[in-house]
């Protein structure tokens, strides 16, 4: 098997990278009809598998689960998840041959093995669905020509997929049809129906391609989402300890700070987050984030280049073949950092204090979000896709850090993201060494405004606000967030 993207001529590469259509709600008027009465068999019952299945069934579709023998015999969690929620569970042999749609929701690393086991059992003309395109694009798995291949990728963790559905809403979702596998031309209709079944159509659906989804997803998770949050957290913690701030306080500030800060990002974009700072702090955060962008730009570009060329997947798959040697070593190393090992102190930190005392993280987040977005767009990824894979997902990842620090983050994200995160972190720390020597406790650990008067130069502030607000991630974000939260205007006939 060879990397699918690399087998394409340039024109087709650009073509597929550029598939990006924010779908109008009128495209979903047919509801779940394209899948009604069809037999949907989900392979794997983990975070995505269970929650997508619950939603699809509650939308009136016929859902059952095919699990590997060991899971059924060992009554593993996946088996419990499915049976205790009253789903039919069976082996591949029992369920796949009669399935109209087989939904592969196993971990990405297992996809080749799973698809090899499942494909021969699938009936002629059936559909194979994914929630992430790595297997098709990076591993270049070839799917039987009679099968339709689609992707429905919720841009949220599984629990969120369920929580938003039961409140009558959904999570933003990317859908795609693999151009090599749409023999009957039914792929898009099925992907749309699937998306209605999970509730995604209420929160904004982006018609994408396998290629665009993978190349942007990898880039986002490695750089801003996981990589920079990890690097920024560790550097911030170490700096505070070095400068004599109480380690327990520092641990708490870092653990919960990213979540509080990115909550503002979620609601109001980079602008909303920066607006939480006092005017002098905002100007300072702007200046240092400009500096950070200059320092880190080559690294972001390298990650994007390696993702585009397939170099990233190649070395990662080498590591898979090598028993995850690098991954496990880096994971162990992360578990040993001082931040990870210092328990958060039982001190109260007010919401605003997280901004005032952790201005450095605000700068990291702004720099990372904008850089990831800019780099993706330069590489030919459309702004809407770039937005979902950078700004949109940052608060979701930050939430996992608040739960149990970096260990939890790396446990929850996929192995692919984890591998990329460590790669980034390894390279980024030395890059920032010099910058960090110039950082003091006014930026991290103490209130930036302490002992300063609140005055700023009008023109300077206006220029800063202007630069923040007119960035493309902000303009596109405003449109997409509107679709996501409230008051989407429905066209009346």
């Amino acid at each position, binding site marked *: 098997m060879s990397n699918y993207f690399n087998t394409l001529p340039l024109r087709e590469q650009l073509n597929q990278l550029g598939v990006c259509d924010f779908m109008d709600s009128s495209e979903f008027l047919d509801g779940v009809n394209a899948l009604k*009465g069809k037999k949907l068999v989900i392979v794997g019952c983990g975070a995505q598998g269970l929650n997508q299945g619950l939603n699809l*069934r509650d939308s009136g579709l016929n859902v059952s689960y095919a699990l590997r023998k060991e899971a059924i015999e060992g009554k593993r969690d996946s088996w419990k998840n499915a049976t205790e*929620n009253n789903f039919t569970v069976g082996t591949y042999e029992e369920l796949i041959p009669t399935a109209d749609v087989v939904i592969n929701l196993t971990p990405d690393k297992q996809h080749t093995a799973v698809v090899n086991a499942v494909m021969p059992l699938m009936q002629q003309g059936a559909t194979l669905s994914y929630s992430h395109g790595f297997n098709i694009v990076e591993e270049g798995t070839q799917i039987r020509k009679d099968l339709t291949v689609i992707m429905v990728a919720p841009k949220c963790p599984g629990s969120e997929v369920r929580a938003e559905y039961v409140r*009558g809403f959904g999570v933003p979702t990317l859908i795609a049809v693999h151009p090599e596998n749409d023999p009957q031309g039914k792929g898009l209709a099925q992907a749309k129906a699937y998306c209605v079944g999970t509730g995604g159509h209420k929160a904004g659906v982006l018609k994408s391609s396998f290629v665009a989804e993978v190349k942007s997803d990898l880039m986002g998770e490695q750089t801003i989402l996981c990589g920079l949050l990890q690097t920024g957290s560790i550097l911030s913690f170490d700096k505070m300890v070095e400068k004599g701030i109480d380690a327990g306080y520092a641990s708490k500030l870092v653990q919960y700070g990213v979540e509080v800060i990115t909550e503002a990002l979620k609601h109001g974009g980079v602008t909303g987050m920066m607006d939480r700072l006092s005017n002098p702090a905002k100007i300072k955060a702007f200046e240092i984030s400009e500096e950070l962008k200059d320092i880190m730009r080559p690294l972001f570009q390298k990650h994007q280049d390696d993702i585009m060329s397939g170099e990233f997947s190649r070395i990662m798959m080498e590591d898979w073949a090598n028993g995850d040697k690098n991954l496990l070593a880096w994971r162990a190393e992360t578990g040993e950092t001082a931040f990870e090992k210092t328990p958060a102190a039982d001190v109260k930190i007010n919401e605003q204090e997280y901004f005032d005392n952790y201005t450095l993280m605000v700068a990291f987040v702004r720099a990372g979000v904008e850089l990831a977005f800019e780099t993706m767009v330069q590489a030919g990824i459309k702004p809407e896709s770039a937005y979902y894979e950078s700004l949109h997902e940052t608060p979701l990842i930050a939430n996992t850090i608040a739960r149990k620090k970096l260990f939890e983050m790396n446990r929850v994200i996929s192995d692919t993201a984890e591998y990329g995160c460590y790669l980034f972190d390894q390279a980024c720390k030395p890059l920032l060494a010099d910058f960090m020597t110039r950082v003091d406790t006014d930026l991290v650990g103490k209130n930036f405004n302490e002992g300063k008067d609140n005055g700023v130069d009008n023109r300077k502030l206006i220029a800063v606000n202007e630069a923040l607000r007119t960035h493309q991630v902000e303009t596109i974000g405003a449109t997409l967030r509107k679709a996501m939260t409230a*008051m989407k205007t429905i066209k009346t006939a």
Partner: protein
Amino acid sequence: MSEPVVHITNLTLKYRHKPVLQDLNWTIKRNENWLLCGASGSGKTSLAKAIAGLTHSYGNIEICFNPNNSSPALAYYVANWFQFKDLEGQSNFYYQQRYNKQAVETTATVKAELESFGGKHALEIKELDRILAALGFSALVNSTLIQLSSGEHKKLQLVKAIWLKPQLLILDLPYNGLDVASRQNLNLLLDEISATGSQLILISNDTELPACLDHFAVIESGKLIEIEADERSSYEIDLISDRVPAFINDFAIPKTDTEIIKMVDVNISYGDKQVLKNINWEVKSGEKWVLQGHNGSGKSTLLSLICGDHPQAYANNFYLFGNKRGSGESIWEIKARIGLISPELHWYFDPSATVAQSIISGFYDSSGLFCDPGYTKKAQADELIHYFGLTAYQNTLMNELPLGKQRLALLARTIVKNPELLILDEPCQGLDQQQTRHFNQLVDELCSHGTTLIYVGHFESQLPACIENRILLENGAVKTVENIFSIT
């Protein structure tokens, strides 16, 4: 004369920038037990929180604890609303998550929670069993927090408070969601702790109260006025207008012969714990039912099946609106025909929606509003906003309003689409008696046009007049199904 225990002078307090209490004065003396009543929004909760030191206020609050009293020197507040956290200290749970098997193990057990509370306050474990038994809670100690119903969460808080026996105990609407037996036992326990070192401030508009209460007060226009026990009812303020909204009379719901609900031997269990046992029940179009049973008898699980909220519905034999459940219908098709209010719906409701958005969201059965409803729906909602006296609050966010007002908005949401089936699970929690009476009149009015009704209420005296059938659950099984005539 005994010395003052709580001495409040010139207390002024704002709730979200609106003045609530204005130069309020109040003296509570040793051994006095007070009842505090007043309309919803009058400032009862704010005052209670100020005394417990949980909210910022201007003026002076002095509390003199008795150093010779062995009870903890604390002003302990039991909120009208409750929140719990998972093992990682977070509390972002979602609606009906407790029915999702996968999610159950992320919260502590009741036992662990109580042990940690007892440890923190150095309480005697042996005292606990009796309190648990009196409130019917003993069987739940091994449950996890997320599995508890709202009534059970309420009880857990009361168990803690009574076990703690603080010198000053402030209870905010403690009877909400409690069944008859628990209410009576709670009153006995309160009498008991008040005789042995605790003083009570009880916020309630209910009539069955502990005997130890000897002082009564109402908050009006930001001031506290002491009243006589029998003066209470005249202080209730009418907030719901009398004229029923016009649209309610405009649509009659066609009567059909098919059963609205038909359950055949319905069973629900979690592991080896069976919560519903062989339920057989039929509800015909236009019937008015009351569903009763002790806390934990299975009422909310039964209702969650009907509302399409329970995943185990798919393994059972039952019919909704004539269709077998799990035969290809979506839960949204089911919800479209039901108007639901329940403590859980309220608890998980989107706190950042405005009152108007919340009401309109009833058309879509969503928690919060995600689309533009158009003119007709807005107009219908407007009528209800007016009817429920919410005009001044229509653009206020839900989380900026006191509980009683939020509840009125959600009641309006429940009926805004004039549904075929109304499921009212303790609809009047947090309302005063006058508001409850008015709401029940509205329910009677609605139901005279063919609506089918299932009503859950723990207070016999607060049921709508139209109710004609009763189903009583006990420990997950149907105890009685009967016709009842004229509850007056």
